[in-house]
């Protein structure tokens, strides 16, 4: 669960059948409205930053010395070659409000006792899935494994979370991978190296000026 504010450093690894790629990024978030993402490596993209303010996404490219507001048509495009779209950066959905939950059993993952919870989106909810099956650690309430189904109950994606560590004062999984069901040898992995929660971020931080100065 996101806190009021969070800052994190992580590696995003995109794995494809013929290639893979790693990015180191730093993120700042405040609530659901503001976010800033700075790319630290690879060298070519170092300094590239994304700013989410409200409903807008801005992109700063040092090589061009220009910030560009991403037009809506770009929202469907993948974000930096990952399995995320630009839209994922700005999308809001609430697990509590948008789904109908039901317990459907329990199991054990990596030695941890888990609840199995089925979540079905409410009819009006803007959620692509037909059903999610979440495996939640009974003790620390960590989401360890999630299956994403479409409306025909066909498995689309699988999320695995592991490497549970204490970070920023919380116990969180630091290794998260998302695996599409129908595309072999393809996944996206997030590896958190540092997370800080609820460290106040000044209001002037989530601005275009700040984005240019991040380096």
């Amino acid at each position, binding site marked *: 669960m996101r806190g009021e504010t969070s800052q994190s450093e992580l590696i995003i690894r995109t794995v494809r059948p013929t290639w893979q790629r790693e990015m180191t990024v730093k993120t700042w978030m405040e609530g659901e409205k503001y976010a800033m993402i700075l790319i630290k490596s690879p060298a070519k993209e170092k300094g590239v930053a994304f700013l989410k303010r409200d*409903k807008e996404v801005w992109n700063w490219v040092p090589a061009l010395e220009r910030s560009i507001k991403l037009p*809506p048509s770009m929202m*469907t495009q993948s974000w930096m070659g990952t399995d995320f779209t630009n*839209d994922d950066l700005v*999308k809001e959905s609430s697990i509590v409000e948008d789904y109908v939950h039901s317990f459907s059993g329990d199991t054990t993952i990596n030695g941890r006792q888990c609840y199995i919870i089925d979540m079905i989106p409410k009819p009006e909810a803007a959620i692509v899935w037909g059903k999610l099956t979440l495996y939640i650690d009974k003790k620390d309430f960590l989401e360890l494994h999630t299956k994403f*189904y*479409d409306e025909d109950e*066909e498995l689309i*994606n699988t999320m695995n979370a592991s490497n549970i560590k204490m970070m920023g004062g919380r116990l969180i999984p630091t290794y998260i991978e998302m695996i599409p069901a129908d595309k072999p040898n393809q996944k996206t992995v997030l590896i958190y190296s540092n997370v800080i929660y609820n460290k106040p971020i000044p209001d002037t931080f989530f601005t275009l000026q700040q984005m240019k100065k991040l380096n």
Partner: protein
Amino acid sequence: MTVIIIIQMAWRNIWRNKVRSMIIISSVAIGLVAGLFVLSLYKGILEDRFRTVIDKEVSHLQIHHARFKEDFDPKYIIPNNDELIKSLGHLSSVKIFTPRTIAQGMLATGTGSSGIQIVGVDPEQEDRVTSLNSKIKEGDGFVNGKKNQLLISKKLADKMHLKVGSKAILTFIDKESNIISSAFRAAGIYQTDNTPRDERIVFVKQKDLNSYLSLDDEFHELAILLQNDDDVENVQASLKNQHPNLQIESWMDISPETKLMIETTDQYSLIFIVIIMLALSFGIVNTMLMAVLERSREIGMLLALGMNRLKVFFMILTETVLLTITGVPMGVLIAWFIVLIYHRHGLDISALGGQAMSEFGFSSMIYPAFPWEKILGEMLIVLIASMLSSLVPAIKAIRLRPVEALQK
């Protein structure tokens, strides 16, 4: 009067050799049938193309805010739309029109996402303008009272693994640039011949889309069908005059490719009519030349008796014209009859072209349409062609030297 007796002679000459006259009459008839059939064929093809573009896709005219089409920014609604609609209602040349709300966005399912154009329509009105319901291949289409219904093309549905009744998430921005995501259910799957276009466009109810975009009874696009295809330019000009701030485009502006194809086809048919008329003319020249040579003695005698060359010339010309005039109504009737049959049953071109045209799911049927508007011109062309071709034998006739002609 001399003219009368010459016409009389010409008319009786026609009946001297019935087989020959029948050949000319039937050549004229066939020439005309050919010409008219070619025209009906092309009219059928063009109407098919034209009607698809006008009646199923772009309509005659479209009106937008002057800046809307730059980026499809939803804030550029058509201003003062009440007034515009009122003024359109007063135009007698306007048949019907339909408002649309348009948003650029994205359609997502569990399978993936795709950039699309979301078109908010008034279902009844849209069906009247673009026959929307006839395009629906699966599902019932929009149903009153149900919210967030979606019509999606077969191509996109297959790509996104969508079925009738399944859910898709549409994401778009409203007029304040807020990003909106909402779930819609496929109420139908539509299909047209224009797959590239299909893949980009989904239909939702205008009411639904307007509420997401925070629009009242406003809209971005007004598609207008006119009573008459020929009025497009006039109405466009007068609307432009009345509403200088709006972008008023005709189908030709929106789809110049269609105009290109239609015009190219139109021009071909002209070339081939010319060739057919040439073939007809050579037939007439030959047959009439025979007639003149056969009668050279008689013509020589007429010249000897003192009938001047102009009158002999006129006589031969009259003969041909009379034959043509006999052939023309026959041709028109036959052509009309043939076209009538094929118009009803369709002409399967693939059998003739020897190609399987249904490869891409296209229909290979042509429904020829009788070109009433061109019939006078066509008759005139045949008449002129036959008159021109009778010039050769007529000149041959007046060049006859009576002494020589009489000796034969």
